[in-house]
């Protein structure tokens, strides 16, 4: 099972990223564990320079922007190997 983390303090963009990621996951028929990371101390442990960040299985795939659903679908498929 995949773990998908959304890094961000809860600003509107983080919510968009989560929505996009959920749509992509359900588009693939995946079961994924969604975790929201809002604590700056924890966020800064990941190598990102701006939020929102998207982390799939502890790999940062995207930060500082809102990815499209197609992009997230590709990343999810890659993570499944």
């Amino acid at each position, binding site marked *: 099972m995949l773990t998908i983390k959304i890094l961000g303090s809860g600003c509107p963009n983080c919510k968009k990223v989560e929505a996009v990621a959920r749509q992509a996951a359900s588009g693939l028929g995946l079961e994924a564990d969604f975790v929201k990371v809002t604590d700056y101390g924890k966020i800064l442990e990941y190598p*990102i*320079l*701006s939020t929102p960040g998207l982390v799939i299985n502890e790999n940062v795939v995207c930060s500082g922007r*809102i990815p499209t659903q197609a992009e997230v679908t590709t990343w999810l498929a890659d993570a499944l190997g």
Partner: protein
Amino acid sequence: MDLIGGLVDLLQGGLGNLAAYLAAHVLLCLVPAFFIAGGLAALIPKESVTRFLGRKAPRYVSYPAAALAGSVLAVCSCTIVPLFAGIYKKGAGIGPAITFLFFAPAANILALAYTGVAIGVDLAFARLFLSLAFGVGIGMIMALIFRRADAEHDRQTDDLFAGRGGVRRGVVIFLLVLVALLLSGTLKIGLLTNTYGQVSLPIAGVQGLEEALFRLVPYDSSRGEEGVTAQGAVLIVLLALIGLSAWRGFENVLEGFNRWTGMTLALITSTLLVAALGMEPGAGGLTIRFPGKFFAVTLALIVLAWLARTRLTEHERRDWLWESWRFVKQIFPLLLIGVFFVGVLRQLIRPEWIESLAGRNTLLGNLAGVAFGVFMYFPTLVEVPIANMFLGLGMHRGPLLAYLMADPELSLQSILLVSAIIGRMKAWTYVAWVALFSTAAGLIFGSWVDGAGLGRIAAYLAGFLGVLALGLSIAGRRGGERPQPASQPVTDT
């Protein structure tokens, strides 16, 4: 004192201030400024700036790049905190990180445009140049003081800053035209403010409407207050309509354009055009003047529409509108509330208090401005109407600048956040330096406003720079102890 009457007065003051701000200042400057901020956030890849902030970047590259990052990338705290921590822990070190932190709130496009229109272009420029000089100065001082702690970070690699990204020429032109739109609506030069034609419309009752508005929102121009004109009333109605339709048109713009998006854009366009017109109600009807800026704004809007259609991709257009709308949602409501309370406050503060404390350009006056800035926390941009209120109440421009320099940089909230990342000792050292520099900025700018000779200002500046240079040279001599990052084997991955 009649309590109810007093409350009504306060409420009226708040609403009056709000209406006057919405109608007069905000539109031609803030509307384009929000779109520029959105464009910067959506269209400029962060890597295009952050790649100059890596561990190995030389000082003359990393400091200016940090300032650039502050003004271009960081309109909201989503970017400021992670980028600050990233530069500090994994990138160019504490100096550029502090420069970035200092420069970001004072010199982003929203703050500068708003200051220029609401208070004066002189203060906007003073804010920009002094923030730049002080941001770099304080950054270098912090890097000196905490040289040893900083050196520990040097051993880490800077993969985080290795990403590359360019900005397309089409995007640059698009952003420049947006800036031109902002300037053509707000610059006060003859070419733009002269009238090049007028028509009279036989609409009766506009004058009566305006008089009714003045009665509804009474104002006292001697206290720096402004009334609401008939044109202002039209603009407020248009703004409310934009707010309503943007909720349907921009909220879901990432999923694609819809009919509401088009309508919102049309409403924004007409708002800008109406705001650029001159309207004078008379006994016979309404006279509409066409000043130069009306034509300039029209031209800029046409070019923008064409550029957005041909040079931006569908995805970029959506991102741009979404980011702009996000800034509006994030900042505008707090700004409205802030402006309202400034209006209330203005009824309560006696001009004599401000006059006696900071009416002249004294050390005490400047210190008072800084202290107020540190201990008061206002949401983004609200410092501007506050400053304008102080100006109306008789504050000298020197202490006013000191306040404007200190307020956005320092608040208890930001101090706590920063100390969580760099430690309490460093955070309070930073605060002390900002307070010192802001006071100096206020004094120097104030004496320039008072018409002091260039010699005296040059002497101030020279003294200031001399102290800085002395400190740097002492540290440079001791710099040999610093471990060389280049001697570390660096693996390229």
